């Protein structure tokens, strides 16, 4: 006979941690099923090489579009999900991000406004201990002051800030989910730049140190190596009844639940729902709109590099940078692409890996690479532009013909960066090179286009025929099925997605808690 719990949460990342804490503390029996392994802080070794274990690989995502979404690099696997290796850059969405269709006739509107979400931003930042400079951050939407002072600025940040000053641009400390002082029993950061490898001190707010500890204390259970394949429903397809999952041995199990929260990141959420097709839902679960999997987005990003004849100390700080600028956040300009841009200044660097020093000049090898490494270890500086992507229905997650080891179709991404996103990226390349030159670099170059954060696929909206969930991440079609994570974002803004998804998850989890009887009835 199948086990039964009150709530099953699929995935053990950021959104899952919030749902688990809120619902377990409300007395619900909560089970979190995670595809990957159990993971503890002491498993997080300071090495870019071992950090690769934190990332996704299989079931693999197939890609058929013009551009890649860098899924394996962005996604996570194991307890903590992608948030275990995220950089902790936590700016807020701006009020206009929620109303782009209404204000500008572009993109989509959210089914909520900034003021609806503001209290949740404030509560999350108080819970995790956000650091920042409330006064210096002149672009910051209304909200409670940061509970912790900003991160220190080292040589790398100070030198690059000269470029912004020369071009009359404002900078402020990056708002970071990284402790600058002891907070709620967690230690302060030591600024050694190992964030991507996971932070074993707990200074960076990953789910292993925020929300999941509350959930576990309240009785929630985290179950590793349990790969969910389908969401199950009653015969009429009106309510979710649980999930089917496969364990490490390949054995299939059913876990029944009064409510299901899918929080398995953007791609797997869409894939699981598409694979949950049934007679009442022939095109996939929660897909009466036909838009499940659609509006896939990623932030077009570029690193601008410069070699300086100064000791940059580029190994100091955190991977999320020391300073940032939102002077280019205005969405409409006289000419040029629509949307926002944001600069991140002076992220900590390591010699190897995708964002490491050696990869900044992938064309070099042999003695040329050797001499570059010696010079760059001392004098390389970098800034990163994050550009807004546009929600386009043709960018999508769909099912492929190829199947995984358990017989379920793999996901396939069909994605091409939006024209506006490409225009913003080009503008960033030009401006970034000018900024680095103005800071005093001898040589300036830039990276190929990358993609940061993955959003969409299960977007929220007011209308059931134009979106998958409502404002509280509840699917329009199945009232006891909720979605967690950046998949519900209908627009991307130009800010990192983690703070936003935490705030949305808190709002949605509390809605589920407070409306339990009607939701599961």
């Amino acid at each position, binding site marked *: 006979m199948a086990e039964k719990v009150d709530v099953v949460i699929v995935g053990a990342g950021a959104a899952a941690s919030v749902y688990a804490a809120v619902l377990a503390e409300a007395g619900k029996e909560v089970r979190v099923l995670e595809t*990957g392994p159990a993971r503890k802080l*002491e*498993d*997080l*070794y*300071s*090495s*870019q*090489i*071992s950090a*690769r*274990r934190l*990332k*996704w*690989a*299989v079931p*693999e995502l197939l*890609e058929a579009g013009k551009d*890649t979404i*860098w899924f*394996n*690099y962005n996604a996570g*696997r194991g307890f903590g999900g992608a948030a275990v290796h995220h950089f902790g850059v936590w700016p807020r969405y701006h009020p206009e991000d929620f109303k782009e269709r209404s204000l500008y006739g572009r993109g989509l509107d959210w089914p909520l406004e900034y003021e609806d979400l503001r209290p949740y931003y404030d509560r999350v930042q108080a819970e995790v201990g956000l650091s920042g400079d409330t006064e210096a951050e002149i672009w910051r939407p209304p909200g409670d002051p940061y509970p912790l002072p900003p991160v220190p600025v080292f040589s790398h940040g100070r030198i690059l800030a000269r470029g912004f000053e020369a071009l009359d641009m404002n900078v402020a400390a990056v708002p970071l989910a990284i402790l600058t002082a002891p907070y709620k029993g967690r230690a302060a950061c*030591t600024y*050694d*730049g*190992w964030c991507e490898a996971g*932070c*074993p*001190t707990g200074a960076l707010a990953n789910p292993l140190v925020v929300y999941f500890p509350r959930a576990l204390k309240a009785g929630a259970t985290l179950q590793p190596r349990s790969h969910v394949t389908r969401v199950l429903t009653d015969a009429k397809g009106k309510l979710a009844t649980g999930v089917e999952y496969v364990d490490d041995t390949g054995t299939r199990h059913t876990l029944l639940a009064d409510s299901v929260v899918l929080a398995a990141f953007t791609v797997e959420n869409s894939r699981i729902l598409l694979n949950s097709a049934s007679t009442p839902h022939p095109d996939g679960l929660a897909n009466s709109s036909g838009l499940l999997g659609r509006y896939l987005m990623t932030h077009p990003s570029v690193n601008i590099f410069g070699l300086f004849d100064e000791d940059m100390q580029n*190994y100091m700080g955190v991977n999320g940078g020391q300073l940032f600028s939102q002077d280019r956040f205005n969405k409409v300009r006289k000419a040029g692409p629509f949307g926002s841009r944001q600069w991140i200044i002076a992220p900590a660097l*390591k*010699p*190897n*890996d*995708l964002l*490491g*020093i*050696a*990869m900044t000049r*992938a*064309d070099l*090898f*042999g*003695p040329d*690479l*050797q001499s570059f*490494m*010696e010079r760059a*270890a*001392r004098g390389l500086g970098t800034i990163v532009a994050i550009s807004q992507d546009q929600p386009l229905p043709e960018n999508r997650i769909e099912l492929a013909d190829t199947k995984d080891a358990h017989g379920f179709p793999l996901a396939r991404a069909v994605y091409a960066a939006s024209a506006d996103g490409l225009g913003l990226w080009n503008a960033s390349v030009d401006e970034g090179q000018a900024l680095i030159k103005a800071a005093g670099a001898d040589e300036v170059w830039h990276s190929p286009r990358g993609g940061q954060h993955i959003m969409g696929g299960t977007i929220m909206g007011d209308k059931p025929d134009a979106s998958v969930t409502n404002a509280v991440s509840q699917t329009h079609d199945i009232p006891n099925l909720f979605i967690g994570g950046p998949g519900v974002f209908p627009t991307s803004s130009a800010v990192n997605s983690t703070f936003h998804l935490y705030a949305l998850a808190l709002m949605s989890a509390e809605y589920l808690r407070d409306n339990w009887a009607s939701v599961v009835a």
Partner: protein
Amino acid sequence: MPPRSSRHADVNRRSFLQGTGLGLLAFSLAGTQVLLTPRQARARGADFKSLGSGEVLTLEALGEVLVPGAREAGIANFVDQQMSADPNESLLMAKYLNVAPPYSDFYHAGLAALDRLSNVQFDAPFVELEQEQAVTLVSSISNSVPDDWDGPPPPLFYLCVRADAVDVVYGTAEGFAKLKIPYLPHIPPPERW
């Protein structure tokens, strides 16, 4: 000589995970599993699981052209050890670069294509090329698809092997020290690799 406990460590899952954090991986020495760095594995003649002896030489030669020091740092031992690993546990950069698992197919095909190209262009396998010839050939695969290439996209193969070479030479505490970068680990390695 290392202490007996490290020479004959039990390679259970926990010690394996700890080892990978320290740069140690499970290698086979005369049929016995031991935790070693790739550099140690090469120096002690560890067995290869996936690569043939010719492939080992080709990969070492290519790695050395890409990043001087990669041969002795154990690039072939590192890649070989990871080729047969569970892709989700893989430490190869190929994982980030959209190489479809199993990664062994990618390396076998890439190394074979490199040798074929070398034979067509210089009438000799890659390991027998003069330095200048090897550099010419590597340059050609780094940014184009040579007519006689029959394997995975050559710039992708170049990028992956270059990343492997960078990992074993610079991605270690020893590599950091060579560049005068403080390693600053939260969990300090007990030895450099």
